[in-house]
């Protein structure tokens, strides 16, 4: 209550008390004495009752304010605790996290939590404990705490009582730096069973967590304290109150509470001062008795009017408290900014006695302001409304400093806003800043045709503006927190659904088996392949139950023991049996999940259906067989007639030669040489096709010795350099050397100074070999044709050959994983290179 109004009320009392001496001085008859005496008694009683009313109203107002403040703080605090508990629960019930905890993969589970302290600064530290209260993993990770038992802690006792989320009282934690924290502990339910697999504990840093409390606007000497379930003070906004306090206590959630206290003397200072003034007034009135007597009747006449003013003032005062109380309630009920403004603006306008009052919100980044609620004599406008330049609210910098602005509409620059204001009969208005936590969030504006803004009006407006600012900023904060929590929940749900979809609709089968060998999870793909419903398999069947008896036996006797030994299986083939009894082949991959002590906990497996691959393999085998029998019959059936052509040609030559003329004999020779050539072609072609089918039998090969042997067979003596050893099929490589050396000899044979060189070197993990001659060479334009079957760069009359030799070279080398190429110039010789992968031993 401010001193102006207290003084006004005191004067009213003094006026009321002054009527007794007037009666005595005017020498009135007895009736007048009786009248005046009875009036005096009546007025005396009225004065005493008024004093009592004033006392109790002021006392109640003070205590109600404290209680409202405590309620606000308790609600805010409870909501913070709930958010922290909700966060703990939403973390603990993430499927992936719970699965990891269920699998006792503490470190992997803790890894998921890594980002939490960054995202929620009040969470200073998290750790995971097993059911016995042993710390298993922590974030951030600290040395020396792992494995310690914390079952004596309040949070452990709290959470194990009924396996519900619990908030501990304040305690000094073990981890360094040792400081006071609160722990939020929540059980982690194992997926599937729902049994508690571990405990997630969030340690909450008091300083960050109580950051909001600093922003509560406390009157001087008022202390806000938050006490935990053991009565310890977790937070205090100032030094403890030593004198006899006025105290308001409100219970918060989880056994906590909020205390608002203030030395009683301070709290009631205003009331006491007011009452002291009232008493002083009585004294003054006594002194004025005689001198005021002659004014008796006049004053007596004016008495009732004064009393009326006092009543009106009291009513105004009550209305003012009601408005402030309304704002407090709005804060407690967490109404929206619009609802708070709407509840307050009309009574406020009436209290201020102005034609118009508006609550404006500022958007300083765009330089705009907007109505939240506007009240006129007849109409009430609520919700986002008219937007206008913020400069209409006066000097923004001054508003920031908390200085109310008085704006004369005639002084505004001409424009539609000015015209509108004038049209609605506003000549002068006042803008009172609304500041919360140092931030200018809006202004309360009011005004009308008159230029008179008395101090009381300003004081009321300023008080309401401050409270509105707190209420609106609280509401905005609450809205932000709620949206953030919703967003978090939505993201968790989305992520969970995404993972679930990925798991269920993967293009392969997945299942997990627990330590007892029972299948605990299986994806949709795998179930669809097998033809089972999930409930027929999960928790009921073992992996081997899905196989044919032979595969199941092989799984039990061979694959599973190997799996337990090495911890994994790769591409092991089994025959699986569908629900309808049909079977199909599939490959299995599996990995085991072990606990920290290396004990087998579970296994995870992927399964691929390979029936299609099997079918293609079988088709391919059949085709190969067909091809083989075809070449077999070619080799046999084509050779016999060729031999007959040549043989009988020869017989004609022998038996009838003398009877033929020269031309006849030449033609016969053509027939015979053609049949021989065709025989050679068939032989080469069969050799070539055999190369593709024959299995490689690789061994260590001395390439120098092999090349020397081939040279001897080809009847040439090349310059033989050092050759790297190889890991290859010696019979096939012998053919390579033979063909390359044979070619070199053939194409250089017409030169008297024919020279053939053979060499080799190692480079880049491979061995390179080459055969160089100084023969006729070739045109590089045709280099690409050299290695094709039946491709020749020379006529048969020039150099004999079938064009298969180099094709064989290429096929052998490529089957060994190498490559071939050639360089040459017409008339200058050629060089043929081939590579082989470097011999592993050398």
């Amino acid at each position, binding site marked *: 209550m401010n001193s102006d109004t207290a003084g006004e009320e005191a004067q009213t009392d003094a006026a009321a008390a002054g009527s007794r001496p007037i009666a005595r001085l005017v020498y009135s008859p007895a009736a007048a004495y009786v009248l005046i005496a009875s009036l005096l008694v009546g007025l005396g009683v009225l004065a005493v009752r008024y004093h009592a009313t004033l006392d109790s109203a002021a006392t109640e107002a003070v205590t109600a304010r404290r209680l409202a403040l405590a309620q606000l703080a308790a609600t805010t605090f409870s909501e913070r605790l709930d958010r922290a508990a909700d966060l703990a629960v939403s973390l603990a019930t993430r499927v992936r996290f719970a699965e990891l905890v269920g699998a006792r993969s503490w470190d992997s589970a803790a890894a998921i939590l890594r980002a939490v302290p960054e995202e929620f600064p009040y969470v200073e530290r998290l750790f995971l404990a097993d059911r016995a209260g042993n710390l298993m993993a922590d974030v951030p990770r600290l040395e020396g705490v792992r494995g310690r038992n914390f079952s004596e802690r309040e949070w452990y006792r709290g959470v194990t009582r009924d396996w519900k989320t619990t908030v501990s009282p304040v305690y000094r934690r073990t981890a360094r730096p040792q400081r006071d924290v609160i722990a939020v502990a929540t059980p982690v339910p194992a997926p599937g069973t729902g049994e508690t697999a571990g405990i997630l504990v969030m340690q909450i840093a008091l300083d960050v967590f109580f950051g909001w409390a600093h922003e509560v606007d406390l009157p001087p000497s008022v202390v806000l304290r938050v006490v935990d379930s053991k009565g310890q003070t977790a937070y205090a906004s100032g030094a403890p109150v030593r004198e006899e306090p006025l105290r308001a206590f409100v219970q918060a959630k989880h056994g906590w509470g909020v205390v608002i206290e203030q030395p009683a003397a301070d709290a009631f200072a205003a009331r006491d001062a007011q009452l002291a003034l009232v008493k002083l007034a009585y004294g003054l009135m006594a002194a004025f008795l005689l001198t005021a007597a002659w004014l008796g009747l006049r004053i007596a006449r004016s008495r009732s009017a004064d009393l009326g003013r006092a009543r009106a003032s009291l009513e105004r005062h009550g209305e003012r408290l009601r408005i402030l109380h309304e704002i407090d309630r709005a804060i407690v009920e967490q109404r929206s900014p619009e609802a708070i403004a709407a509840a307050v603006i009309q009574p406020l306008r009436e209290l201020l006695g102005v034609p118009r009052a508006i609550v404006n919100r500022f958007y300083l980044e765009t330089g705009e302001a907007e109505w939240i609620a506007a009240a006129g004599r007849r109409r009430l406008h609520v919700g986002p409304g008219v937007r206008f330049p913020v400069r209409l609210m006066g000097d923004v910098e001054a508003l920031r400093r908390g200085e109310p602005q008085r704006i004369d509409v005639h002084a505004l620059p001409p424009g539609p806003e000015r015209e509108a204001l004038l049209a609605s009969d506003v000549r002068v208005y006042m803008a009172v800043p609304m500041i919360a936590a140092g931030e200018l969030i809006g202004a309360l504006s009011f005004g009308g045709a008159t230029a008179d803004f008395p101090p009381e009006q300003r004081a009321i407006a300023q008080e309401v503006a401050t409270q509105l600012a707190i209420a609106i900023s609280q509401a905005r904060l609450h809205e932000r927190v709620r949206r953030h929590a919703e967003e978090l929940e939505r993201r968790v749900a989305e992520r969970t659904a995404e993972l679930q979809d990925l798991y269920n609709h993967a293009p392969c089968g997945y299942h997990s088996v627990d330590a007892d060998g029972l299948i605990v999870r299986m994806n949709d793909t795998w179930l669809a392949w097998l033809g089972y419903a999930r409930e027929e398999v999960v928790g009921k069947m073992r992996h081997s139950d899905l196989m044919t008896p032979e595969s199941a036996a092989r799984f039990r006797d061979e694959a599973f023991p190997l799996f337990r030994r090495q911890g994994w299986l790769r591409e092991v083939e089994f025959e699986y049996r569908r629900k309808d009894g049909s079977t199909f082949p599939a490959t299995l991959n599996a990995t085991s999940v072990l606990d920290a002590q290396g004990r087998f906990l579970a296994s995870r497996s992927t399964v691929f259906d390979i029936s299609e691959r099997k079918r293609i393999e079988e088709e391919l085998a059949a085709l190969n067989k067909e091809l083989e029998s075809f070449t077999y019959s070619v*080799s*046999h059936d084509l050779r016999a007639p060729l031999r007959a052509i040549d043989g009988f040609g020869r017989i004609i030559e022998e038996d009838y030669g003398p009877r033929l003329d020269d031309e006849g004999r030449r033609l016969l020779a053509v027939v015979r040489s053609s049949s*021989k050539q065709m025989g050679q072609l068939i032989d080469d072609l069969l050799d070539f096709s055999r190369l593709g089918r024959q299995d490689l039998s690789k061994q260590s090969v001395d390439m120098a010795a092999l090349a020397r042997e081939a040279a001897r067979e080809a009847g040439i003596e090349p310059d033989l350099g050092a050759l790297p050893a190889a890991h290859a099929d010696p019979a096939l490589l012998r053919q390579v050397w033979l063909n390359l050396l044979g070619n070199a000899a053939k194409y250089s044979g017409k030169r008297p100074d024919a020279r053939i060189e053979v060499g080799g070197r190692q480079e880049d993990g491979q061995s390179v070999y080459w055969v160089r001659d100084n023969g006729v060479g070739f045109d590089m334009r045709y280099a690409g044709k050299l290695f094709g079957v039946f491709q020749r760069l020379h006529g048969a009359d020039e150099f004999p050959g079938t064009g298969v030799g180099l094709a064989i070279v290429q096929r052998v080398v490529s089957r060994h994983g190498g490559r071939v190429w050639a360089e040459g110039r017409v008339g200058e010789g050629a060089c043929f290179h081939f590579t082989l992968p470097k011999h592993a031993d050398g």
Partner: protein
Amino acid sequence: MPMVEQIEILLVEDNPNDAEMTLRALRRNNLVNRVHWVKDGAAALDLLFSNEKKPKLVLLDLKMPKIDGIEVLRRLKADESTRALPVVVMTSSNEERDVVETYQLGVNSYIVKPVGFEAFLETVAKIGLYWVLTNRVPQ
């Protein structure tokens, strides 16, 4: 049909051209009178199992109608009375699997018929001379 006593070489060959060329080659070496030619495996088996006196050499083609050369070889090597009989396979097949199979059955030699006539003549002559004149068989 000549008397069995006179047979020194039994030629089992379904292709008359090859047979004629073989006979011509043997004739040059004066071996033709001792050769008896049958056109399939069944005839060869009939002849060999119905006579006490065995030839010095069987020249066996592999690919034949009715009973093929592999089967003839199997039966000859399976029977006590014919196991010691030298069998030379003369065939157009250069397939490794035929070589392996016949050797596993106990063939005495495996010859691929050369396509060229000169080589063919030479090869047949060598075989005839070696197995009939040089080689000694148990009596």
